[in-house]
């Protein structure tokens, strides 16, 4: 015990020496004010990533509570109302608190370094975008302790559940959504201005790394749809407090209108959560295949087509509201069309790996698992796109299985892959590879045990968002719960590995990975506080 304490204090002394070293050329300020007032893209990136990790664990605990309740049929842990609060908060926190801030954090850290810019274009705005988030999520989480409980209407907050029948805390939920929306919009503006205006000479658009390209497109999606989300929650606020009737049929409104406006935001939103993941994977696979990415320009065009298509498919979330046949057909075929550019991407990744001299370090394992498991999620998405069968799948666990397959082994795995891939660049130390691999395999196995059986219970008709279920679903649900706990607790390894990577000296080279190409690998590890203060030469 005392030995570890000694190493820790030795490291901390070492850290201080480092800080003084960089103080020379305008290093970071000391203490908490460094983080409060920082305008440095690396500091802000780190804060986003830590925040996202904290939210990931919070939302994860809620997921485990849900799985505990569903371990057996009947009500044992909690009342249905609290169960509904858990599903709602789990969804909101994972979408807006874990996945989106993680990608913004990666964007902050990597975009300036990848394009050779000294910092983000709007550093003060950057500070503000981050510091809004802890307040937004505190407000959201405190609703759990309010009278009437937290929001319990599902993360999609359909009216009238979220208006007429909502708990009083819904107003806090609305303001929290406003705040996180403002944060995302400011972040997106910053990313666009940085990418379009801060490139050094020679860094033309078609030379941008794919992570930068996918983020540029994501930022445009954010600009276009986050205001619509702000609009829909504002309408809710007005219906609840100012007597309007946007979503109330009694006053001439229509609850189905809510679903249209929400999903006009909601569908591009799911691409906001996956496009940067495509970018991350397109960086990692070439590195560990020691080959150039196959079909760079087709990747760019495929990403843009996916972004465009995301605006004309929203009603596939609402096939069962009673649409006319023409509408069902249009949204069905438009949705299936998305499989084409997505297929292009998957084939490009496979072609990149084909005959490459591949090695399987942790980031590569996560990236390959991403390609395989995301494709499974894509296939179940195609099944859901078929309007006539969607009537059977709608609101069942099949949908839960589908979107968890694209979000957990999709977005979340890509974030973990990115964390392992760039950790040595951020901290200057290699992480523990053995522990990383163990984390990967436990996560991979845990996730499949959790979510694969959900396909079966879903096809058999088990409804989602219900705390109790019919006896015939008991076995598969018990299996899912066991998998969830394996996945959940294996994340402790991830946190331990990150912390020990920061604290344990295991000097990384500037290139870090043998096959790594790109400007971020030309700066020393750890990346100095200020990089590319003079623009690099790009050929």
């Amino acid at each position, binding site marked *: 015990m005392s030995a570890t304490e000694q190493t820790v204090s030795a490291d901390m002394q070492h850290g201080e020496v480092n800080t003084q070293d960089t103080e020379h050329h305008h290093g970071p300020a000391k203490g908490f004010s460094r983080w409060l007032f920082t305008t440095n893209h690396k500091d802000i990136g780190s804060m986003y990533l830590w925040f996202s990790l904290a939210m990931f664990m919070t939302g994860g605990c809620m997921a485990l509570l849900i799985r505990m309740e569903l371990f057996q049929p009947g009500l044992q842990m909690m009342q249905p109302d609290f169960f509904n609060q858990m599903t709602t908060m789990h969804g909101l926190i994972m979408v807006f608190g874990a996945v989106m801030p993680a990608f913004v954090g990666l964007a902050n850290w990597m975009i300036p370094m990848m394009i050779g810019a000294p910092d983000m274009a*709007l550093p003060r705005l950057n500070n503000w975008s981050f510091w809004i988030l802890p307040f937004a999520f505190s407000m959201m989480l405190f609703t759990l302790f309010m009278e009437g409980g937290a929001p319990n209407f599902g993360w999609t907050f359909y009216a009238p559940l979220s208006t007429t029948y909502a708990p009083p805390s819904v107003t806090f939920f609305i303001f929290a959504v406003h705040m996180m929306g403002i944060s995302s919009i400011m972040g*997106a503006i910053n990313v666009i201005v940085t990418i379009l205006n801060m490139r050094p000479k020679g860094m033309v658009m078609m030379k941008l790394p794919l992570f930068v390209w996918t983020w540029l497109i994501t930022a445009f999606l954010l600009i276009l749809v986050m*205001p*619509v*989300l702000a609009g829909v929650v504002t309408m809710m606020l007005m219906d609840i407090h100012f007597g309007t009737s946007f979503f109330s049929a009694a006053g*001439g409104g*229509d609850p189905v209108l809510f679903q249209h*406006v929400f999903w006009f935001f909601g569908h591009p939103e799911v691409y906001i959560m996956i496009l940067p993941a495509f970018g991350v994977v397109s960086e990692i696979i070439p590195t560990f295949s020691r080959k150039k990415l196959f079909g760079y320009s087709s990747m760019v065009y495929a990403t843009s087509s996916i972004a465009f298509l995301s605006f004309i498919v929203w009603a596939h979330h609402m096939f069962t509201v009673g649409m*006319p046949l023409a509408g069902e057909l249009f949204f069905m075929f438009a949705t299936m069309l998305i499989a084409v550019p997505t297929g292009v991407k998957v084939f490009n990744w496979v072609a990149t790996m084909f005959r490459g001299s591949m090695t399987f370090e942790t980031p590569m394992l996560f990236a390959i698992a991403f390609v395989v498991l995301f494709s499974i999620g894509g296939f179940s998405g195609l099944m859901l796109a078929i309007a006539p069968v969607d009537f059977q799948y709608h609101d069942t666990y099949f949908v839960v299985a589908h979107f968890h397959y694209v979000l957990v082994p999709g977005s979340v795995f890509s974030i973990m892959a990115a964390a392992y891939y760039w950790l040595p660049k951020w901290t200057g130390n290699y992480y523990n590879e053995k522990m990383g691999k163990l984390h990967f395999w436990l996560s991979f196995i845990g996730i499949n045990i959790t979510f694969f059986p959900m396909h079966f219970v879903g096809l058999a008709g088990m409804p989602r968002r219900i705390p109790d279920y019919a006896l015939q679903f008991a076995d598969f649900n018990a299996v899912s719960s066991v998998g969830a706990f394996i996945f959940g607790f294996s994340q402790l390894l991830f946190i331990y590995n990150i912390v020990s990577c920061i604290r344990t000296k295991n000097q990384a080279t500037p290139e870090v990975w043998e096959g790594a190409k790109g400007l971020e690998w030309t700066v020393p590890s750890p990346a100095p506080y200020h990089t590319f203060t003079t623009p690099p030469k790009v050929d």
Partner: protein
Amino acid sequence: MKQASANNKLIIKLVVSVALMFGFGFALVPLYDVFCRITGINGKVDLTPATYAESSQSDRSLKIQFIAVNNESMPWQFKPNAYSMKVQLGKTYQTSYQASNMTSEYMVAQAVPSVSPSEAAQYLQKVDCFCFNRQPLKAGEVKEMGLAFNIDPQMPEYIKTITLSYTLFDITAEDSKPIASTNL
């Protein structure tokens, strides 16, 4: 300096797009109504009286069913006087609903119609309907509420039965305010 002004131009453009998209979110509300009215989907029924026109009658006839629904805590008794009718296309028919206020309070109600299948909505023309007005009823009062309609002979052939449903909402609290869709 050049960088700063280029940034400012781009930022202004992006902020304006954000503002426009916020507006677009609200513009979806009337767009949705207009879209539903033009295409007749979602079972939204025109809430303005049709001009009385005994248009070209046809020999075709179909069945129309009437349904009455009380919204959530609405305590009135509400039922159609005829549950179904066989009607000839193009001819005007009259029927009625009966509402009785079972409470000891003065109350105001608004009926909201919906047609199923939704494609039929645009061919069902209401000459007169109690849903055009809010319905005030004194405590214990019973009222026959009239409805006159005709069905456009353009009605697609494959529709043999249509269902007209009225949902009764308690709007006593909001009685002083105008109804959104009658303003359009």
